[in-house]
């Protein structure tokens, strides 16, 4: 499902005299219509395709009218392209500043997956302003905000862009419906999106890929010969109860649910006509609906079970957990080697490689080389570019030969209060892009002690999201900052995260106008994407601490999407 489907589906468009819908591709449009309307993201490549279509028509002596609607905004570069291709005069352009798509009661997506690659790989800041506008839109609808926190370079820029837009626009006094805002860059926490998801919604996303809040279950799930598109959100009562559960609890829950359902059906027995009538008109429809949902999710769970309970998945999880804990690293590396050489999965191997690099603060030169060489042998030399990208984005690093840099850095680190020294570390960190995961994990207590039993049915903290092995760094930061009302006492943590943190009070008087429930409403904005695991974790945190989190993200991501966006053999 595409974002457009969620706003105006095919029948709506047809009602408005749309003749036919096409996907924008690099091929001629075969249609008798003399008007073409393109609704596109402002990508130069796409505009080039459109130019080709128009020029082909021109060459064929065909007259058509063209309109391009750019969403969420028009870029100068796109118009320059039209001009260069000589069709600027023949095309009318428009802007549709659509930047927020609510996926659920508490999840809003900007549906901009390219945000991640453009910003964190290419250093192209074109979307920052769009993020600022999205925040501004929310602010003008539900603001004023009483407090804003954030971490990361992009967050800071988005915040500044928002601030500018607020200053330019007119202020209206309103009752605030959102109390606080937390902005976070994806590159602050790469560990979380690289882990295998084991909470139901995350698992469904990892395996079936949820697109725009909608998933397509294949025949193996629906146990028929047809595929089925299903919306996954809080409207689905069965899904709503299991989406945040660890997968090991899902079956128990579903069978309990099935028993309850059977019980409800069984009520029919011994009813008189009148009761039966009431039952049919009031309850039966709901029960049938629930029945349908239930069997679908049972089907999905079975399919997941088939894929995930195999021996190798257990071993994969075990390896991930040891990487997070920092134990038995050599064994993990051997596992990874075998994973690569047996060509288990191109993406999974890269994922583990990145996870290894980040948790270990970079790979030893020997391992770095041999793993890369192995990978190239398995999947081809074009992945040299992939590695170059991963390195650029900070997902993959080589430990510097000798400890010269780190020793120096730790020395400088002690003088961190000194401004110039701070700048020096900045310079170093930009040089090596250290992840410092191990130190962060200790500081924030991200990895619970492994010898304690963790009862996944009764989660005691956010670690249940990853089977009790790891508390999500991103969500932990949210928790800590909200608790402390800022970054005070977290100097060491922010230094390890390469700084760029901020905590500011919102518009004056907003605090007074934010009353009661609104104070506990926190908007968390992920720049570069967030995972369903993170959403689940925030939902848990909200229940525990009495917050209501609203997640805004540039796109929903997971490990495969993250890595796919960095693959080198695409232009």
């Amino acid at each position, binding site marked *: 499902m595409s974002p457009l489907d969620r706003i105006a589906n095919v029948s709506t468009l047809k009602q408005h005299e749309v003749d036919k819908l096409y996907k924008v591709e690099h091929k001629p449009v075969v249609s008798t219509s003399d008007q073409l309307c393109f609704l596109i993201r402002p990508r*130069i*490549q796409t505009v*080039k395709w459109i130019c080709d279509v128009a020029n082909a028509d021109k060459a064929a002596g065909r007259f058509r009218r063209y309109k391009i609607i750019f969403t969420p905004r028009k*870029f*100068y*570069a796109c118009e*320059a*392209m039209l001009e260069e291709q000589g069709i600027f005069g023949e095309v009318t352009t428009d802007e549709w500043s659509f930047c927020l798509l609510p996926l659920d009661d508490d999840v809003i997506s900007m549906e901009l997956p390219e945000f991640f690659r*453009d910003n964190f790989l*290419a*250093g*192209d*800041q*074109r979307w*920052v*302003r769009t993020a600022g506008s999205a925040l501004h839109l929310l602010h003008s609808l539900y603001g004023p905000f009483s407090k804003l926190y954030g971490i990361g370079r992009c967050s800071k*820029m988005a915040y*500044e*862009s928002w601030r*500018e837009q607020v200053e*330019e626009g007119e202020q209206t006094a309103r009752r605030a419906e959102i109390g606080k805002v937390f902005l976070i860059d994806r590159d602050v926490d790469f560990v979380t999106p690289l882990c295998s998801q084991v909470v139901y919604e995350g698992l469904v996303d990892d395996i079936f890929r949820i697109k725009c809040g909608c998933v397509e279950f294949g025949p193996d799930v629906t146990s028929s010969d047809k595929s089925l598109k299903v919306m996954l959100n809080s409207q689905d009562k069965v899904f709503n109860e299991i989406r945040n559960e660890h997968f090991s609890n899902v079956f128990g829950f579903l069978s309990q649910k099935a028993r309850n359902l059977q019980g409800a059906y069984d009520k029919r027995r011994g009813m008189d006509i009148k009761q039966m009538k009431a039952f049919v008109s009031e309850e039966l429809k709901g029960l049938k609906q629930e029945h349908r949902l239930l069997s679908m999710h049972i089907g999905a769970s079975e399919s997941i079970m088939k894929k995930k309970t195999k021996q190798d998945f257990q071993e994969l999880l075990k390896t991930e957990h040891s990487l997070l804990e920092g134990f038995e690293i050599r064994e993990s590396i051997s596992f990874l*080697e*075998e994973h690569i*050489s*047996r*060509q288990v999965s191109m993406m999974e191997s890269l994922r583990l490689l990145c996870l290894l690099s980040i948790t270990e603060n970079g790979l030893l030169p020997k391992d770095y*080389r041999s793993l*890369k*060489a*192995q990978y*190239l*042998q*398995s*999947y*081809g*030399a*074009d992945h*040299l*570019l992939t590695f*170059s990208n991963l390195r650029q984005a900070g997902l993959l690093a080589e430990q510097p030969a000798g400890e010269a840099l780190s020793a120096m850095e730790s020395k400088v680190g002690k003088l961190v209060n000194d401004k110039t020294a701070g700048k020096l570390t900045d310079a170093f960190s930009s040089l090596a892009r250290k992840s410092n995961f191990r130190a962060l994990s200790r500081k924030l207590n991200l990895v619970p002690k492994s010898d304690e039993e963790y009862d996944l049915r009764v989660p005691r903290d956010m670690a249940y999201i990853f089977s009790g092995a790891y508390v999500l760094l991103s969500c932990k930061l949210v928790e800590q900052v909200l608790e402390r009302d800022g970054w005070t006492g977290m100097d060491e943590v922010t230094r390890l995260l390469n700084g760029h943190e901020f905590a500011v009070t919102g518009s004056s008087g907003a605090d007074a106008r934010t009353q009661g429930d609104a104070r506990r409403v926190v908007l968390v904005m992920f720049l570069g994407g967030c995972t369903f695991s993170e959403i689940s974790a925030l939902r848990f945190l909200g229940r525990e601490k009495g917050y209501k989190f609203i997640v805004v993200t540039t796109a929903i991501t997971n490990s495969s999407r993250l890595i796919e966006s960095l693959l*080198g*053999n695409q*232009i």
Partner: protein
Amino acid sequence: MTFITANWNPLGEAFYRKSELYEMCWNLRDGLRDCLVAAAPYGGPIALLREPVRRSPSSRPQLEIYSASGVSIASFPWKSGPVVHLGWTRHFSMGQEVVQSQVLEAKVFHSPYGTGVAIVTGSSRFIMATNIDDLKLRRLPEVPGLQGKPSCWVVLNQDRQTKVLLSTGSELYILDNTSCTAVSLPGLAPQGGSIVHMSVSFSYKYLAVLTDSGHLWTGPSHLQDKMSEVDTKKLTPPKQMVWCRRPKSQQPSVVLMWDRLLMVVGVCQDTIQFPTEDQCVLVGEMDGVRIISSTNQELLQEVPLVCQEIFKIASMAPGALLLEAHREYEKSSQKADEYLREIKEQSMLGEAVSQCIEAAGHEYDPNTQKSLMRAASFGKCFLTDFSPGQFVTTCRELRVLNSVRESSVGLPLTHTQFKQMTLQVLIDRLVYRQFYPLAIEMCRYLKIPDYQGVSRVLKHWASCKVQQKDLSDEAIARAMCAKVGDSPGVSYSDIAAKAYECGRTELAIKLLDFEARSGEQVPLLLKMKRSQLALSKAVESGDTDLVYTVVTYLKNEMNRGDFFMTLRNQPVALSLYRQFCKLQEQETLKDLYNQDDDHKELANYYVTASYREKRLESRLSLLQSAVDEYNKAKNEFSAKATEEEMRLLRFQRKLDDEKGAGLLELSLQATMEALLALGLYKQAEQLYRDFRVPDKRYWWLKLKSLAEKEEWDELEKFSKSKKSPIGYLAFVEVCMKSNNKYEAKKYVSKVTPEQRVKAHLAISDLDGAADAAIERKNDSEIATVLSRCSAADRLLIERLNRASTAKK
């Protein structure tokens, strides 16, 4: 209070008053004689042109502009031809046609569509433009029998059409866009005579016509009706004839002016006559007539009804009583109470207060205003639910009006005019007259939002200030910063643009520094050719589009080297440009990397390019370039990997040629797989050795490949070729995958003890697994075996349980 009514003259039921507005500040030697005078309505300025008909071609008459109080505003010599008519408009030209035909007469008129002009040409044709801002000349149809100019004419505005009403003496015509219609005045006595003068009211609703027999006809301008006909008993035509009415007029009148006489002729047939000593000019306003002479200026108007009610002698209107009550109160007389009681008994106190407030608005004299407002305030005290809004607003507006009426400002606005004109326009007029402090004071006093008020004034002030040539850039910038500060809505970039227009580039740059939004600075900086500065400001603004605009601009402006150097100092701009080049200009991208000596990116560039290349030779040469660059970048790993890729490509090519294997573009692993599948073991072996493929990988590969092809003998041979680096469990599992239990069994014995249980279980040999587990005395292994047992394996279960307990 008798003196208030001293200048009142009764006209029918109503009264007219003539009150002095100003002693004129100007000093005119010859009075208004031989002058063309035009005064703008709403208390506007006066334009004066002496001797419009030149005595000699060389004399240049002076065009002088004064405020309504006679303060000189501007003066310049008139350089063009003879002037026919003077009126207030904005600057415009009527084009060649008008220049060629002589203009006999002209009239400037104001309508809801703007300011218009109508002229009579030498060929007796009318040409009209209804709105000079959107200049469209219309030639009106010919008037039958008209020679020269008509005896008199006026412009009418009816039914959203602008028409001309003209008289050729005896005949009366209406000229519209398409036709010329003869009309007659209803009810005009036949002995009336021919028409010598016409006048239309301020609102275009009424028409007054004077005949040569001295009869004045009045009626609505659509000519369907007659209001009155009065014999003025004057046979000479007047110099000027103007309507004098006000909104809700009780007794409208027409003012006629002769050399020494001013006559007010009411529709009721009454007249008032004022002798005049000096040459005068009448200016029609919406609520009266201004009379300008060389020494003073007066306002003639019908006394508003509310003022009549209050000030009329022996009036018993509630307002009059309240005024009286307050007067007694001030004298500490108990009569105050009596008056008050009287109003209250009729429960008219609210009405009384309203009357006083309204009347105050209409009074010109501050003392009268004060006493009325005081009376209103006094009355208000006895009311509990009287809204103070009207009182407060009137107070404020009166203060504003009094201050603009000051002789130094010279805007004699009445309250009615002010309301019609709106405050916005008043502020604009003050700003154009450069009364900045007054305008700002007014905005602040009336609490107008900064955006519409103070900021607007400051904007005007600033763009005027930058034009002051006598001040240094530094001084102006400083003054600007001090005055404007960061008032919302004032754009420093606009001011800077103005400064640049005036040729003060340095000042413009200084001013741009004050601009908080860096995005706003960019366009002007580009215009001023400060491109480097523009680029850094664009980057600062965070608006990538703006950065891109500047980059494109620079690309066209600078030579390539400088352009690249500039980008190098701006990483944000550089990465944007790179993105663009990646899609559009691959070659430029290469140059860019070259310039920066960025060997790594250059190498990556070659690698990317190699994948777009179809021919192997060019591909290899691109890869060779990549190798060179990787070496320069000291990236040995990538250099080696690329070299190996080249070797692999050559190898694949060779085999493709020899055996048609279809290997090109496959990875090393896939190549080996393909070779094994084709049975080309030797070649696979060669790759394994040449590319130092790890043993484990090769063994897995060969194991899988042989099992898939079910070459079990070959597999057994392979297993014995040397000690397996991947162990033998793998063999068992792979065989089982092909469902060959027989072959799998062969390898179970070779499996290491740690994996033996697993191996037995893999071939579903529970007994063997149990033996192995018991032998190893391993609880978890025993448990694993147990979990695989079914009820039928009772004996086995017992054995395992025994072993388990025995250990304990």
